[in-house]
């Protein structure tokens, strides 16, 4: 069943008399062409917001064997082809299950844009009924003096996770933290909603896509609205922030991640696909589109290599290392090479340091056997610093996305300590950016947020010796201290590097994820990355006897087909500093992050130079609620 969000179907006022006489007037939501008007899907969806000049595709889907004879697609009453000055193309495909395919007619405009701000209504009349959506073209901002934008994303990061990391890293004595994170010192603090087109629960693809485009997407989709056609690359596209600032302002673009660089969050900077799993295509997308980021740093070498070599995952036989090299990239493959690359910044740098996702801080620094042969991987701080050294050479400015990917990848399998290590490292990378900006480019906006949350929370502490010595489950439960009995964990950071000297102290956090499979929990650091549940003989997930065998048995709180914790609904934190930061000190939708970054640099895609004209006047908006303190409160 396709998702038809926010769609309005109203009876057309312009139905010809003949049609009225020959057809029943169908109710809203008619399901088949046989007994009513053809269901219509309009993409982009209702309430989509745009910047003028930003390009996007329109796709109208109409169920049926052929286009309705009365088909009319209008924008504010004018034929859409006239409004956009472009002709559409028509395609046909089938949607739904193979056993009951539904024919679909698709009418598509590629690469159109709005010339000016304002509200627009798109109406599609088909089989005598009209479906409409409203789109809002926002007025570009004058800009706040920012030249560069750095977007830090800790994947799957929440206030509860930040707090747990702060306790472990900074220490808390008599209720006060001994020192703050750099994140804590950001002047603007807000919240962002994360839901997508198809679900209240989002994934990293559509959430990161919203941050990078200002448009909602669906689970697994990047830089595009989800249509019903089988192809994943033909879904109607929206321009990304990186594409806009490169095309219009000549800014540089950088991508830094600890995941595969083709993973959902980094891919959202530049990719357009319905299916985030198309990582081989995503790896080639910059070469194929011509949008070549100046800096690409992360993991995922497997996606660059043809599958004819061991470990390679490309069925097309291309060796993308060779192709990126031919496109002018310097290539580095370990931390040592990365360090030298920063000393004499190349024009373009591609640094991949692992076959897949890079190892987390805890495994790169404490349980180093878990790295396997990848013993010289850089951390997020080194990658961020090198990216800034290269990107900072562009006087037009840059957009850098930095992702702490394994905050999410570790709390999925309920591995609290590996998550915490990467949050501490995330803060260190932000601190590096702050120091770089203060010294080199104070006109840099830094935005810090997450794409979605996880159901993690700390509720006390655990006396490890008592827990491990307890003869039974009630005894282990009694080792959990609540309220005053919790006291404080006993992590020590004598060397002051922000990371505990010993990850196995006598008193650790009692912290859990509220959605999980059957598993056991001992609250203590695991020397290997956790796999809490495994598939049983019938495919249902059951406790992994090798994981926390000394732990408390936990009854599953989710379908037995789920092997690990999942994303949650909660709003995620937003922090910002630098010019334009105040925009982010609010309750936002995740799509607003895109518009806030654009506002900070005064991005006007409808201007020839991409800069909002100095004489542009933002339209007055009448308050339809209560004006209090200069803010319009509505209900």
């Amino acid at each position, binding site marked *: 069943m396709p998702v038809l969000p926010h769609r309005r179907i109203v009876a057309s006022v312009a139905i010809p008399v003949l049609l009225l006489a020959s057809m029943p007037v169908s109710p809203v939501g008619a399901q088949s062409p046989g007994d009513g008007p053809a269901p219509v899907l309009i993409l982009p969806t209702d309430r989509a917001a745009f910047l003028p000049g930003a390009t996007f595709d329109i796709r109208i889907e109409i169920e049926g064997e052929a286009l309705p004879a009365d088909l009319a697609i209008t924008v504010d009453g004018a034929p859409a082809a006239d409004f956009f000055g472009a002709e559409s193309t028509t395609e046909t495909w089938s949607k739904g299950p193979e056993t009951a395919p539904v024919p679909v007619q698709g009418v598509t405009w590629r690469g159109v844009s709005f010339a000016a701000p304002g509200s627009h209504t798109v109406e599609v009349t088909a089989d005598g009924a009209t479906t409409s959506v409203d789109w809002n073209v926002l007025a570009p901002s004058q800009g706040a003096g920012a030249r560069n934008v750095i977007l830090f994303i800790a994947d799957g990061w929440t206030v509860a996770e930040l707090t747990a990391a702060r306790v472990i890293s900074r220490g808390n004595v008599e209720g006060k933290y001994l020192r703050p994170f750099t994140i804590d010192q950001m002047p603007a603090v807000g919240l962002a909603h994360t839901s997508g087109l198809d679900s209240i629960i989002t994934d990293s693809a559509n959430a990161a896509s919203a941050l990078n485009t200002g448009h909602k997407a669906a689970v697994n989709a990047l830089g595009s609205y989800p249509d019903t056609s089988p192809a994943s690359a033909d879904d109607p596209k929206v321009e990304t922030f990186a594409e806009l600032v490169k095309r219009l302002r000549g800014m540089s673009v950088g991508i830094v991640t600890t995941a595969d660089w083709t993973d959902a969050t980094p891919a959202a900077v530049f990719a357009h696909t319905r299916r985030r799993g198309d*990582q081989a295509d995503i790896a080639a997308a910059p070469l194929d589109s011509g949008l070549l980021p100046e800096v690409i740093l992360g993991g995922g070498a497997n996606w660059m290599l043809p599958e004819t070599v061991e470990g390679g995952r490309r069925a097309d036989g291309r060796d993308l290392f060779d192709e990126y090299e031919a496109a002018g990239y310097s290539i580095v493959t370990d931390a040592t090479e990365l360090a030298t690359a920063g000393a004499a910044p190349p024009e373009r740098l591609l640094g991949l340091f692992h*076959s897949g996702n890079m190892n987390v801080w805890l495994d790169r620094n404490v349980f180093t056997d878990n790295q396997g042969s990848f013993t010289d991987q850089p951390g997020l701080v080194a990658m961020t610093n090198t990216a800034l050294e290269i990107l900072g050479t562009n006087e037009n400015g840059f957009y850098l996305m930095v992702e702490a990917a394994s905050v999410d990848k570790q709390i999925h399998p309920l591995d609290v300590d590996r998550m915490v290590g990467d949050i501490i490292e995330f803060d260190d990378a932000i601190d590096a950016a702050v120091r770089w900006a203060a010294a080199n480019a104070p006109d840099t906006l830094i935005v810090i947020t997450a794409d979605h949350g996880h159901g993690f929370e700390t509720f006390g502490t655990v006396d490890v010796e008592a827990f491990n010595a307890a003869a039974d489950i009630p005894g282990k439960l009694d080792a959990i201290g609540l309220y005053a009995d919790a006291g404080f964990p006993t992590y020590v950071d004598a060397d002051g590097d922000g990371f505990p000297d010993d990850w196995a102290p006598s008193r650790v956090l009692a912290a859990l994820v509220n959605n999980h499979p059957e598993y056991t929990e001992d609250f203590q650091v695991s020397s290997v990355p956790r796999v809490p549940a*495994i598939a049983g*003989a019938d495919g249902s997930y059951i406790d992994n006897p090798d994981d926390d065998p000394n732990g408390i048995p936990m009854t599953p709180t989710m379908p037995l087909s789920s092997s690990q914790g999942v994303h949650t609904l909660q709003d995620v934190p937003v922090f910002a500093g630098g010019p334009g930061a105040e925009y982010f000190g609010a309750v936002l939708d995740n799509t607003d992050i895109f518009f806030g970054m654009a506002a900070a640099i005064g991005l006007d895609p409808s201007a020839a130079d991409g800069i909002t004209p100095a004489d542009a006047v933002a339209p007055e908006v009448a308050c339809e609620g209560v004006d209090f303190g200069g803010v319009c409160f509505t209900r």
Partner: protein
Amino acid sequence: MSPTTRVPTFRPTWLPGLIVCLLLAGCVTAGTSPTGEPPTGTPPTGGPTSSAMVEDRTVVVDHPPTDASGEAVPLSFEEFYDGYDIRTGLILSDTLRSLAGRRVRMEGYMAPPLKPDLDFFVLTRIRMAYCPFCSTAADWPDDIAVVYLTQGTMRATDRPLRLEGVLELGARRDEQTGLLSIVRIRADHIEPL
């Protein structure tokens, strides 16, 4: 039911007709031909196998296989690779190369399978929560082996396994499942531990 169950082997003594219960409650129907394998290599039908087991474009076999039906050589996941070159991929160890086409014995775990009755599965070093067929983009470890049953099927299990069979080597994509593999074992003997 015996906890140690022999899947029909290459040898004539195990030829079709047998129905052998395997593992837990599962049964093997001998004579059922494996379906999870593209028709590239010559299916082992008995007697010593030859280098036809190894695809043309795969690694050079330093020691041509001569005794595929002989004593199995123990092989661990740790012995698979000598590391990974970012520009050229996994570096196959000399040990692994020398065993191509020969009988090996391995221990490991069955990765979460796609269906309960299996004619092939992924053998992993540690217990895994990921299903390699459910998401081709899953963060799958490099040190895995795809196990093809030479005959019959077996039930999915979460128990540790010991198996014996002939080692195939070289990057190849399974046409039916899309699964990429480097190390494959055509197993004629699988037992839970």
